[in-house]
C-alpha cells in the first residue's frame, strides 16, 4: 500500500513549469576525452558550419561536439574507428589546417558530391550533430519551441476552419 500512497501523492504534487528545465551541467565545462585537441577543434568547427549560430543558437551553444565526444568515449571500438577514420579523411583533405573560407568550401563540396572522399565523414557528422543539436535544450526549446512534456489544463484543439475541409 505504501507505494500506492506515494503514487497518489505524486499526482497531487505534480509539477510542470511553463518553462522547460535547464540543461544538464554535464557538458558545460566538459573536456574532450575521445578526440585529441586537433580533431576536437576540427569537429567543433565542422558542427558549427552545419548548424551555425544565426538569429537562433547553433551547434556551438548546444555543445554538439562535446556531446559527440562524450558518447564516443563510451562507444564500442567499431564505432570509435568509424569516427577516427572520418577525422583522418578530413585531416587528409586539409580541413584541420584550413582557414574559415577553405573549411566552408570543403563542407560545401562534401555536401554536393557523394563521391567526395569526405562525404562519409560529412554524413556521419551531420547525422550525429543533428541528433546532438535537437535533443539539446538549445535545439529543442530555444530553436524549435517544443511545447510537450508540460502541464496543460486542456489540449489545444485545432480552431482553423481551413483545416476542417479538403
Amino acid at each position, binding site marked *: 500500500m505504501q507505494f500506492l500512497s506515494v503514487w497518489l501523492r505524486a499526482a497531487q504534487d505534480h509539477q510542470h513549469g511553463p518553462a522547460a528545465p535547464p540543461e544538464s551541467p554535464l557538458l558545460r565545462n566538459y573536456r574532450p576525452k575521445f578526440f585529441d585537441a586537433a580533431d576536437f577543434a576540427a569537429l567543433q568547427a565542422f558542427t558549427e558550419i552545419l548548424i551555425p549560430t544565426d538569429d537562433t543558437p547553433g551547434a556551438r551553444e548546444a555543445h554538439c561536439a562535446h556531446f559527440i565526444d562524450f558518447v564516443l568515449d563510451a562507444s564500442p571500438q567499431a*564505432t570509435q574507428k568509424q569516427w577516427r577514420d572520418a577525422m583522418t579523411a578530413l585531416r587528409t583533405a586539409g580541413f584541420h589546417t584550413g582557414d574559415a573560407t577553405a573549411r566552408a568550401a570543403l563542407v560545401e563540396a562534401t555536401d554536393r558530391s557523394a563521391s567526395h572522399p569526405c562525404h562519409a565523414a560529412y554524413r556521419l557528422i551531420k547525422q550525429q550533430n543533428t541528433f546532438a543539436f535537437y535533443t539539446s535544450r538549445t535545439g529543442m526549446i530555444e530553436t524549435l519551441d517544443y511545447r510537450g512534456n508540460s502541464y496543460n489544463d486542456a489540449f489545444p484543439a485545432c480552431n482553423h476552419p481551413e483545416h476542417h475541409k479538403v
Partner: protein
Amino acid sequence: MTYDAIVVGSGACGGWAAMQLTQAGMKVLMLEAGSRVDPVKDFKHEFLYEMDYRGQGKPGMMRRYAGSERNYRIMLDNQENPYTTSPETVYRWGRSRVLGGRTLHWARATDRMADYEFKAASRDGYGMDWAVTYAAMKPYYDRVEGFIGVSGAMEGFLQFPDGVFLPAMPLNCAEAIFTAASKSLGWPTTHRRLAQLTRVHNGRPPCHYCGNCVNGCDVGAMFSTVSTTLPPALKTGNLEVRTDTVVARIRMNRENRAQGVTYIERYTKKSIDVDAKYVILAASTLENTRLMLLSEKAGLANSSGTLGHYMMDQVGGGGVTGFLPKLKGGPARLDDGKSAGITIPNFQNIDKKTARKDFIRGYVMNATGGQTEFPQYAASLPGYGSAWKKEVKSRYVAQARVWIAGGEMLAQKENFVELDPEVKDAWGIPVLKIHFSHSDNDRKLLADFQEKAEELFRKAGGEVMPDAPRGGPVGFPGAPGSPDAGPSPAGRGQRQPRRQTLGGSIHEVGTARMSTSPKEGVLNSFCQTHDIPNLFVFGGNAFPSTGDKHPTLTMMALTARGCDRLLELAKGKKA
C-alpha cells in the same frame, strides 16, 4: 494457507481478475515476476537534454533492456528472460515484467470487436468463429469501459461499436486535416478511443497532455493496473501481492484439478509452493502458454492438441510519413501531448458489398501529425547551414504520419510456440521457441493498407517522405536508428512507421484458442480450460482470430466474463 484464487500476472487481465474476485470476497494471491515501481522515481517527466545520453542510455545498455532509457525499468531485462525463434521466424516479442505489466506503457487504444470479426469464419470460410458473440460480450465491454474510463466519440459504425465514453480528446491541426481528407474519401473516421481520462473519473485525475504515456503516467490518467484496478483490490483487504516471484509451473492434484503453483523467488532463487482453489493465468498470452507447456509433458489442458498453436499477432509495420504543406511554417503548438490521433475503422470485407476478391479480413488506420519531441526527418533533409535550419523549423509543425493500427493476421496452425529444449532463463526455466511467419493474405492486406494510406496522404495534400528516416547514424550505438536504439527517441509517442515491412504489433494472441468443442481448442467461452475446471487463462490466448481492433479491451471483457463464471462456480451455482 489455501487461497481462494492465485492470479499469475498483474497486467490488464490480472489486475481486473484480482479486483473482481477480491471485491466478491475471495482471498486472492497475486504473483508478479517483476518488481514494484516507484511512481515518483520512475514516472517523472524528463527532457532528453536532462539525460546524459539523451534518452538512449549508455551505448550498449539498451541491448539488454526493452524500451528506452526513459522506460526500461517498466519493460524487461532481455538477459534474464531470453526466448528463441526458428530460422524462418522474424518476430520481436515485446514484453514487460513489472507490477502492472504492459498497462504501464501501452498504447491505450480501447476498441470493441464487432460481430463481423467474431463471426468472420462463417462469412468467408477461413478459420473458426469465436465461441462468443457481440451480444454476449457487450455487457462486459460496458462494465470494463465504464470502470477504466475511455475517451471517444459515438459514431454508430456497425464495424466499430460505440461504447461507454468520456468526452473525446480534441483534434490537433494535422488530425483535423486528415479527418477532412478521410471523410471526403467516404471513409469512416473518428477520434482514437483511448483509456485515457478527459475528466475526473472514479477518483482519478484527467490527462494533462504531457505526452509521456509510454513512460508511465505520473498521475494515473491513463488506465493501468497500478492506477485503476489494484487500489480497489487492495482496499478490500483480500489481496496479497508478491512481486519478484517467477512462476515455474502449475501443480496438479489427483482429482485432475490445479492444486496451486510453484514459484521461484527472483533474487534468492528459492522455490515456493502455494495452493489455491482456482488458478488464474494472466501473465500475458505467450507466458500463459509457456506455463501450461511447462506443467505437463504434453502441455496442460491439451487434450485437443492445439495448445501452443495458432499463434497470431496483428499485422503491423506499414505506414506513410511526410509533411502537410498547409501547416508548414506555422507557430509551435502542443501537438503530441495526448499521443493520440484519429482512427479510420476497417471498411472492407465487412459484408458482401464490401468484399474484396484479393484478400480477406481488414485493418484499422490511424493518423496524426504536428510537432514532436525530436525531428526525425532533419538529418535527411538536404543541405546544411542557416537555410537548412529554417527548413527543419518550417517542417517541424507540419510533420504527418499514417500507420496501420491493427491488421488482421490469419490464424495458421503452423505458427506455434514450444519449449526450447536447450535454452533456459535466469531461473533455469526452459524458454519459449517461437515459430512464426506471415501468409500471402497478410502481405496483400498490408499492401492494400499502404495504397490506402498513400491515398489518404494525397487527399490531405501531404508530401510523402519516401523511406522515412529514423534519424541518427547507423552504427552509432545509442543514437536513434542504430541497432540497439528504441523505436523512437526515448520511446515517446508513436513508433516510426516503416513502409512495406511486415511486423508484429505487440498484439500477440492465440495459442490456447476458445472453442465450443473441447476437441478444437483449449478454452471454453469463459476462458476456462476444457480439461481442468479450476484453471482459467486470461489474456489473448482465447482468440481464435485477431480481428482488426486492438485486443486489450476484449481481453479484459473476457476476463470479466470469466470471473463471473468462476464466482458462479465457487458459489455452486454452476456445475
